[in-house]
């Protein structure tokens, strides 16, 4: 139990540091949002109008301490402000709708990639002398080494444009009313296949290699030989004895990957015009939309912390050593 409490205290501290950094970083960027806005339409505005606009967007020149306090107050209330890039939508609402799409697309892709990569890692380590055990790891590593945007563009061009099997863009069909009905769900899945597959192709190789290397070193341990000698069934030996130990480092990586899902898959979302989080972030930075930037960073930070916490708990289940409160 102390282990859980200790971790919780750590997360609280990390959360506060993140919130504070989140406040400071955008303010250290050069430029200001109103002039960025003017730059966007290559126009000029009278200085009086610019000043009045700054006041409308609540961009004050108040002392930092004061701004920090009101920022903390608003954040605690869940009021993340109004987006300038997507004026006048409230940041919380903008992030909310993009988050759903991102979690659906990138979340599915990361889980599929992790499960697929890890299973293949186990298999290729167990049968590393078979022909597929020798060819699969380098083949997937090769795919993963391609620049991602190139891979995604190729997939889009081949399967979307030339063959026409999958839609070219967006999260669902433009002619479909979003809602919980069959046409919408099928359409959403159809639209996710191509982008998700490219993510899986690009990342599965990593999971495979990581798992395979761990497996091979675990398979060399004495207790595996003993289990072998005892005549345990192969499946039990592979999954309960070897894989369960070998998967621990991968789980840490999985936690991180899961957390970063929230930051969106930037290139995927741009190439497939997917209505997710990644493109929002670029837009926020480009337009110096402090409120949106802060909201996004906050969402990302908390997602990473939450994912880590989830992994901590997963660890406790996978690795009995963490369950004892004594530091080993």
């Amino acid at each position, binding site marked *: 139990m102390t282990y859980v409490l200790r971790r919780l205290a750590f997360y609280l501290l990390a959360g506060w540091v993140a919130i504070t950094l989140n406040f400071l970083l955008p303010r250290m960027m050069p430029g200001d949002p109103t*002039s960025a806005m003017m730059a966007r339409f290559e126009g000029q505005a009278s200085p009086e109008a610019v000043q009045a606009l700054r006041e409308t967007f609540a961009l004050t020149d108040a002392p930092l301490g004061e701004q920090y306090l009101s920022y903390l107050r608003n954040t605690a209330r869940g009021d993340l402000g109004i987006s300038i890039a997507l004026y006048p939508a409230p940041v919380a609402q903008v992030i909310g709708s993009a988050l759903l799409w991102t979690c659906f697309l990138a979340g599915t892709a990361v889980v599929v990639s992790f499960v697929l990569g890890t299973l293949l890692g186990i298999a290729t380590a167990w049968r590393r002398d078979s022909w597929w055990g020798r060819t699969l790891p380098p083949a997937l590593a090769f795919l993963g080494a391609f620049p991602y945007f190139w891979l995604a563009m190729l997939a889009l061009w081949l399967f979307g444009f030339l063959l026409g099997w999958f839609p070219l863009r967006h999260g669902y069909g*433009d002619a479909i009313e979003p809602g919980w009905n069959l046409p919408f769900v099928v359409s959403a899945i159809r639209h996710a296949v191509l982008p998700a597959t490219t993510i899986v192709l690009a990342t599965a190789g990593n999971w495979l290699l990581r798992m395979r290397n761990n497996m091979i070193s675990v398979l060399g341990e004495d207790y595996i030989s003993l289990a072998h000698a005892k005549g345990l069934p192969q499946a039990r030996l592979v999954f309960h004895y070897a894989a369960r130990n070998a998967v621990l480092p991968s789980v840490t990586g999985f936690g991180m990957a899961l957390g970063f899902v929230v930051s969106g898959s930037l290139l995927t979302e741009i190439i497939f015009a997917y209505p997710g989080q990644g493109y929002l972030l670029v837009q926020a930075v480009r337009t110096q939309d402090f409120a949106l930037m802060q909201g996004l960073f906050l969402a990302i930070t908390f997602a990473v912390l939450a994912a880590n916490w989830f992994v901590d708990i997963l660890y406790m289940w996978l690795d009995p050593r963490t369950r004892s409160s004594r530091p080993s």
Partner: protein
Amino acid sequence: MRVVFGTAAVLLAAGWLIVGCTDPIRETSAKTVTIAKETQAAWVRNFNPLIAPSLSRWPTTCGIHEPLLVFNVMEDRYVPWLAERHVLSEDLLELRFDLRHGVRWSDGEAFTADDVVFTFELLREHRALDLEGVWSFLSRVQSVDDHTVVFTFSRPFVPGLVYIAHQPIVPEHIWRTVEHPVTFANEHPVGTGPFTEVRLFRDQVFELGRNPYYWMRGAPGVDALRFPAYAGNDQANLALVNDEVDWSGTFVPAVERTFVARDRAQRHYWFPLVGNTAMLYTNNHHPALASAAVRKALSRAFDRELIVEVAMYGYTRPADATALSDAYATWRDGSIAAADDWTRYDPKRAAAELDALGYRLDDDGRRTLPDGSPITFELILVSGWSDWVRAGQIVARQLSELGIDVMVKTFDRPTWFDRMQRGAFDLAIGWTVKGPTPYTFYRGLMSSDQYKPIGTAAPLNWHRFSDPAVDELFDAFERAGPRSEQEAIAREMQAAFVAHAPSLPLFPNPPWGTSNTRRIEGFPDAGNPYAVLSPNDFTFPLLVLTRLRAREAP
């Protein structure tokens, strides 16, 4: 094994379902114009015509809300829109607009002079809406009767016409009750324009249907406008090549080969050079860039023909020393640039002039200031603007042949813009502002009004040029009523620009515009140049939108 087969069967079935069931492509009629405008991953519903145009959706000022007049750069005249006539008084202090009769708002109410007065009063009350600062030269706006509005100026300011003429007008009976017009999203717009009914609004696509009360006879010739969200240029171009888009303002690389060649009969582009001018801004406070003679010598050192060919795919032409694009064809006096054309490539002459000015080569082959220290420049560009980045690299390479070390640095757009405004650069490639007369254009490049010391943000005049004699030209233009008088002053402005070379023009920026006439026709082109094809502007595209019509089914 059975499990494996079972799983495979389920996967196959799911795969068939997903690949096999195609979405309905269009739920809309064929009389819909699909337009690729604004790079957005998801739409936000904002149709407020009074705030900065980039904050609200494009059709806000191009379809929903209309101005009094629309300036047509191809014809160099104001096209009567909500106003049929405008008259400036002899003393230049009263501007009268006679409004069009029979115009109705999209809810059926009559459009009157009170709506115009109300709109301008809103700007006076809310400074954040007065983007062009009209109340800096206006003193009163009054309606004489239902169809006559008089603007009283506090001082003669002839160039003010465009700001008044292009102000989108809002209905008083709706906006009277709006509490915060600056933050108002105007989700259910009521306008006088051709497309006012929001038929559909989702994060990925929105559609505007026609205004049942539109005043222009026979217009619009289509039922609706449709705007799919494209997060980037590549996505929009893919849709364009796939015949999904009818009208686009995206930059298409090698447009002739990638787009037009696949269907010459229906696919068109037209880039008349009536946009702004891309400039190589020279920071006039840099010791090596302070004198006009040096700037002119440097200007001769790079080959604009090469830049246009390599960086701009040959879509444009080199600028001349007046920097004026074809938008000012009726104002440009060719003889002025010809007399001292320092934009012509002549590296030998550039080197000789620099030598004569005391900017000699040192023993290491580096060009030096008269005091002996080597000259180095930092050239700043926006990262990702590949055409300008290529142009900047050519400039850097050709200046290095002169013995000058140029470091090319790219920044994000906001950072770049911040540096431009504060004067934190030696050289930079940037745009110029444009207007109906050379006054707006040159004022941004030469007026002391816009001058700010290094470190303070200057909205324009980023290179920081100032000369009281030139300022007098702007004052004179503001008080010049007759066109002949204006033209004489504009010629003096051109002469001043050629003489002082405050910055170095590179090429007129082509306004990107592509059209696909499979479903929709009536787009302007070189054969029928009634307006600019590019939708990349505000207000002007009204000229095109009202001329588009659906093609008869074959």
